[in-house]
């Protein structure tokens, strides 16, 4: 897999010859058309693809904007944590083409903090106010006539910072001595809730056995092709704003924006275009940018457009919270788990943005997964750290939870000496227990989990996989099998977020529940059918599925139905749950479409009944005709009845209104508020997934290769097998990334390392192993109109922990941390590394993981006595000649210098404002330097020591340095900064030698060539 050396020579010519066989996998999910439908259940090709595959999609950037529209750019923080001392935008404002600059101070004056679902100590305005709290945080927004000028202007804005210590680990951030992010709180743990369901104390006290495991789930996201895009304009008519963006919902956040902007909600007109280039949750927290852009547009008195670039997206848009979980299980020696304790530290980065901290509460009701466990204790710490704030990411709290629970099931199997599959089966809820009220409140609607497992084992041929494992192990290879089960929630209860509040706080705030979905179906004067809805698709194929559903209700074909899913809050039917998230479409939007189309059908049936002279109950819709059920010849074309409602209202039955336009606002009564005992039915429908896989670990490289992966998902009624399969395969791809490659890396001081796609690695088609899909017997939901449940998130839940369990099985280790980078896996194998022979001194400059520091040491002979070298080092004029790239250097008090230097490696260079202080002076023997440099490329803090020793008529300079680098170069140049720093130090020292009158020809690569020659020479 990642080791690509073994490619056959034929690969070279691969691009010239077609592949031997089609790369398209066979479809795994069969068509299944129910008797009452003719299109739902079919593999209807996607209507969307007619335009998307021709490059005719309509994304925000395709929408024409008004003449004079400006473009925005942001000044962003290079620091993880710092006070903002001053912002000077005068040079930017003086630039031609620059219209407005907005700072955090402006935001605090003109807007209110953006609210979150519970009382908290955080004032969040979209731009940093007084302090920055993560690398990449927007500090200043600037609007200019084009993006180039806007970025030029942003470069001219000078922000002065006072750097503060940062905290990045969610557990350490809760310690009393941790740096505090938000001054209104004395702890970075801004919410702690403790839940007891059943009697966990007794369950643990009386347990035959107990065990615990601590897991650390990494920080990742799923990165859409299209980034954030906003066009905002102030409206004189309403005093509000008109906004076009690719915001994905939930539209509850529309109220958050309007409140922040201090306007009526109706005066915030938000439109979303026809297409959105993927989101996977990320386009929820575009809303702070919308608020900032509105303020910027009002100040500039022109519309302002902003397309987020990839650097901005990766450092500062939205990530899933990383989480530390201590999971404890009480269990019997037969593997039956009787109690579970979960202590979560959920790391939300620098700010909470609505609806955070939702992910952990969205999964609360299913904390026991699909298992019959009646005693549960959960403690949730919501923690602030100096990292990018969080948002929605496909899976929304599930990957973190299930990683803990399913790793524990594997541990229980190991500790009881059983097959993990047997432990999973034993604990699963039985078929006759549905609908099953989980102990934390989820009402699991339908399923037969053991049957799904059995079907996956049978059809996925686990027996053959076990043989492959046994054969591999017989050869001494490291092979393991992993299993994972998951309950897949869909259609979130808008009330679950209130579980973060105490019962008393909930009582004060009033009830919150439900998840209203809206679809409008209309029939025009010539009988054409139009559908609009609030599902805000991002590529999933909603148009196709809605056309199938409505066509079935009205006896038409999907091609007879035109579905328009761009949205306009001023004109559409919508409620707070509108949007595209948490597998909402299949249960909610599909039900709303079914309901709206049914109302249209009922109305048309009444009009037709009068024309056909039959009772309404006997009217049927088939093949574009409306006819009597028992006499198909007694028929009237669909378009005639549609037309009648428009052309001749007087011919309609007395109680029928003219026109045909029905809006369904669909909700399910099962979505009730959090109870006084903190039980919450977090979602409406719950699918079930079960995966198993075989992996092999290469002991030489640490590479984990997926040998086979089998995945089964019961999502009830399948609306369109092609769309469902697309979701499973897509989820597999993103889950594969989370498992093997994707992680936002921060150093201990908050330095951000994953600024581009060369650092944040996303799997491509070349990395993805084939997945074997099993289609188990479906168990439709009794609570949704078509019995459909969500299917888009299943592999986010199962894949990371299924693979982790397989690696644990292969290596016999307990602590598995994602992503499975080979270097990490190699360390788990604990093989002793051969030491170097005596002739070879190890390079002393290898760093330690988690340390942001570039450090080194060395010595060099300078041909001048110590007194003279000392004088040089303290003389700004001579130092200006010695320091590479020095443009200016002046004394700033005793033993302090300020200046400007151009630093870099090769063509990568930036001008830095620098300050150096010499301390602990012992003339002419030693001193300590402390320095700082700031510029557009980033920010650097460093210290060093040097010692001058008289030797051979000259001076031996011994030096040590440690440099920390944050900001842009640290985020995008991680591979090379260490070497670049070495190079700079080397240049400085050689320049020092030359200044002292010596001859110091630069030696390539820090003298390594010499060491290599000695290495070979010693051997020859």
């Amino acid at each position, binding site marked *: 897999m990642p080791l690509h050396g073994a490619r056959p020579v034929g690969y070279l010519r691969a691009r010239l010859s077609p592949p031997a066989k089609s790369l398209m996998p066979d479809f795994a999910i069969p068509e299944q058309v129910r008797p009452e439908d003719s299109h739902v259940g079919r593999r209807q090709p996607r209507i969307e693809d007619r335009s998307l595959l021709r490059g005719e999609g309509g994304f925000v950037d395709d929408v024409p904007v008004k003449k004079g529209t400006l473009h925005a750019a942001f000044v962003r923080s290079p620091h993880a944590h710092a006070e903002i001392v001053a912002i000077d935008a005068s040079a930017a404002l003086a630039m031609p083409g620059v219209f407005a600059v907005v700072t955090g101070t402006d935001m605090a004056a003109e807007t209110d903090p953006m609210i979150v679902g519970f009382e908290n100590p955080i004032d969040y305005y979209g731009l940093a106010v007084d302090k920055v709290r993560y690398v990449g945080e927007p500090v200043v927004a600037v609007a200019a006539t084009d993006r180039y000028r806007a970025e030029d202007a942003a470069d001219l804005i000078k922000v002065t910072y006072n750097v503060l210590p940062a905290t990045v680990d969610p557990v350490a951030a809760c310690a009393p001595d941790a740096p505090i992010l938000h001054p209104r709180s004395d702890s970075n743990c801004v919410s702690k809730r403790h839940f007891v369901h059943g009697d966990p104390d007794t369950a643990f006290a009386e347990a035959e056995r107990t065990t615990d495991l601590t897991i650390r789930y990494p920080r990742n996201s799923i990165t859409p092709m299209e980034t954030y895009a906003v066009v905002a304009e102030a409206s004189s008519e309403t005093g509000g704003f008109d906004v076009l963006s690719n915001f994905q919902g939930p539209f509850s956040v529309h109220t958050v924006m309007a409140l922040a902007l201090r306007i009526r909600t109706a005066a915030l007109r938000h439109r979303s275009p026809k297409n959105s280039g993927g989101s996977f949750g990320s386009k929820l927290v575009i809303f702070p940018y919308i608020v900032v852009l509105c303020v910027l547009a009002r100040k500039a008195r022109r519309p302002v457009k902003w397309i987020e670039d990839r650097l901005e997206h990766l450092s500062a848009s939205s990530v899933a919270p990383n989480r530390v979980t201590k999971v404890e299980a009480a269990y019997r020696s037969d593997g039956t788990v009787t109690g579970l304790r979960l202590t979560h530290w959920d790391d939300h980065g620098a700010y909470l943005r609505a609806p955070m901290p939702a992910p952990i509460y969205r999964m609360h009701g299913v904390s026991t997964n699909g298992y019959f466990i009646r005693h549960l204790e959960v403690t949730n710490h919501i923690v602030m750290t100096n990292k990018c704030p969080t948002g929605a990411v496909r899976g929304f709290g599930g990957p973190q939870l299930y990683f803990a629970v399913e790793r524990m099931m594997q541990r229980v199997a190991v500790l009881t000496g059983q097959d993990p599959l047997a432990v999973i089966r034993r604990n699963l809820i039985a078929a006759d227990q549905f609908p099953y009220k989980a102990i934390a409140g989820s009402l699991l609607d339908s399923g037969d989990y053991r049957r799904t497992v059995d079907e996956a084992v049978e059809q996925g041929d686990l027996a053959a996989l076990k043989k492959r494992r046994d054969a591999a192990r017989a050869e001494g290879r490291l092979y393991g099998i992993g299993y994972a089960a998951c309950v897949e929630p869909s259609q979130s209860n808008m009330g679950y977020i209130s579980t973060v509040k105490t019962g008393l706080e909930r009582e004060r705030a009033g009830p919150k529940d439900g998840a209203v979905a809206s679809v409008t179906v209309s029939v025009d004067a010539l009988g054409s059918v139009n559908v609009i809805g609030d599902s805000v698709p991002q590529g999933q194929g909603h148009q196709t599925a809605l056309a199938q559903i409505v066509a079935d209700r009205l006896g038409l074909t999907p091609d007879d139905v035109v579905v328009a899913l761009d949205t306009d809050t001023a004109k559409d039917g919508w409620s707070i749950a509108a949007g595209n998230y948490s597998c909402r479409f299949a249960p909610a939007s599909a039900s709303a479409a079914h309901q709206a189309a049914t109302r249209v059908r009922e109305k048309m049936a009444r009009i037709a009944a009068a024309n056909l002279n039959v009772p309404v109950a006997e009217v049927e819709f088939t093949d574009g005709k409306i006819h009597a059920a028992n006499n198909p010849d007694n028929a009237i074309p669909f378009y005639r009845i549609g037309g009648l409602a428009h052309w001749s209202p007087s011919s309609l039955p007395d109680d029928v209104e003219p026109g045909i336009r029905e809006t369904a606002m669909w909700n399910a009564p099962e979505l009730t508020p959090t109870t006084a005992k903190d039980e919450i039915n977090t979602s409406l429908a719950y699918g079930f997934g079960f995966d198993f896989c075989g992996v092999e670990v290469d002991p030489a490289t640490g590479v984990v290769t997926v040998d086979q992966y089998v995945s089964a998902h019961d999502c009830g009624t399948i609306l369109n097998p092609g769309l469902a399969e697309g979701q499973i395969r897509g989820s597999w791809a993103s889950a594969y990334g989370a498992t093997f490659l994707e992680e936002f890396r921060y150093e201990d001081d908050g330095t951000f390392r994953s600024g581009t796609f060369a650092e944040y690695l996303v799997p491509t088609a070349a990395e993805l192993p084939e997945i074997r899909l099993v289609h188990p017997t479906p168990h439709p939901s009794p609570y949704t109109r078509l019995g459909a449940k969500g299917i888009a998130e299943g592999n986010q839940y199962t894949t990371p922990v299924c693979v982790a369990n397989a690696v644990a099985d292969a290596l016999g280790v307990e602590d598995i941390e994602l992503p499975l980078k080979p270097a990490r896996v190699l360390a788990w194998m604990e093989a002793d590394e051969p030491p170097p022979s005596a002739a070879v001194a190890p390079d002393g400059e*290898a760093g330690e993981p988690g340390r942001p520091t570039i450090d080194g040491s060395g010595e060099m002979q300078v041909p001048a006595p110590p007194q003279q070298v000392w004088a040089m080092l303290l003389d700004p004029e001579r130092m200006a000649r010695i320091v590479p790239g020095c443009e200016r250097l002046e004394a700033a008090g005793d033993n302090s210098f300020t200046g400007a230097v151009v630093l870099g490696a090769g*063509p990568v260079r930036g001008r830095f404002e620098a300050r150096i202080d010499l301390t602990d002076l012992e003339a002419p023997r030693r001193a300590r330097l402390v320095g700082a440099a700031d510029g557009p490329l980033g920010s650097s803090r460093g210290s060093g020591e040097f010692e001058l020793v008289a030797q051979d008529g000259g001076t031996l300079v011994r030096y040590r340095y440690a440099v920390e680098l944050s900001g842009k170069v640290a985020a995008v140049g991680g591979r090379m900064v260490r070497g670049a720093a070495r190079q700079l130090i080397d240049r400085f020292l050689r320049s020092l030698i030359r200044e002292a009158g010596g001859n110091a020809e630069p030696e390539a690569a820090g003298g390594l060539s010499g060491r290599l020659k000695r290495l070979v020479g010693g051997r020859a």
Partner: protein
Amino acid sequence: MKPAPFDYVRADSVEEAVSVLAEHGDEARVLAGGQSLMPMLNMRLVRPEVLVDIGGLPELAHIEDEGDTVAVGAAVTQGDLADWPELGTALPVVAAALPHVGHFQTRNRGTVCGSICHADPSSELPLCLALLGGEVELHSAHGVRTVPADEFQRGVLTTAKEPDELAVRARLPKAQDGERFAFLEFQHRHGDFAVVAVAAKRSGDSVSLAVGGVADRPEVCRWDTLPGDAVEDALNDLAWTLGGGDDIHATARHRRQLVRHLGKRAIDATAADGAGA
């Protein structure tokens, strides 16, 4: 991600390109395929006053078989070289390495000399140049000079090319009878910069191994003789000598392990009975 302002000159000849470089020196950058330069420009990591575009110069678009060497002009793309029919026999190690250089889309724009001049410590083409002991021909207003590979790449993104010089061609020695080569690399995804890349050459008793991705530039170790039972110890010492640090893609220890593992496989593959790479 928009570049700072710059002037753009599309050179009509090497002379013109060289004269622009003579005029602007360090403030000018040469643009050929742009696969490294354009992202750096857009990220404002590089802010030249002038870009000199040599990508369209026909005089630089040639691959020439010079007998013992192959001269690759500065406008020859990595894709052009991969498609050169003689590549497999003339430069088998380059043929093996090229599929690892980015993706075929980037190879269709990125040039061979551009990659060599960019001097990324993990790049495959500088590694091949180092292993083969090739050279780079530099032109300036002062004349022409040729710099051997060992002296050309000096460190991270840094070469011996002066600001007023244009790399006009790279020369790569052709495989001689009896020489055997291998190339292997470890990367997280196909097309990524190598975590560790190795290229091996066996000529008679002597074995050379070039290692990229570890030190600040590709380093070549040449053993006059390297019996099979000495390979592992030799590679272990090499791994410790090269050093290498931790970054977000790998640890120093992982890199040492990869030097030992890939080095062994590559050297074994060059043995007379080896399978080749």
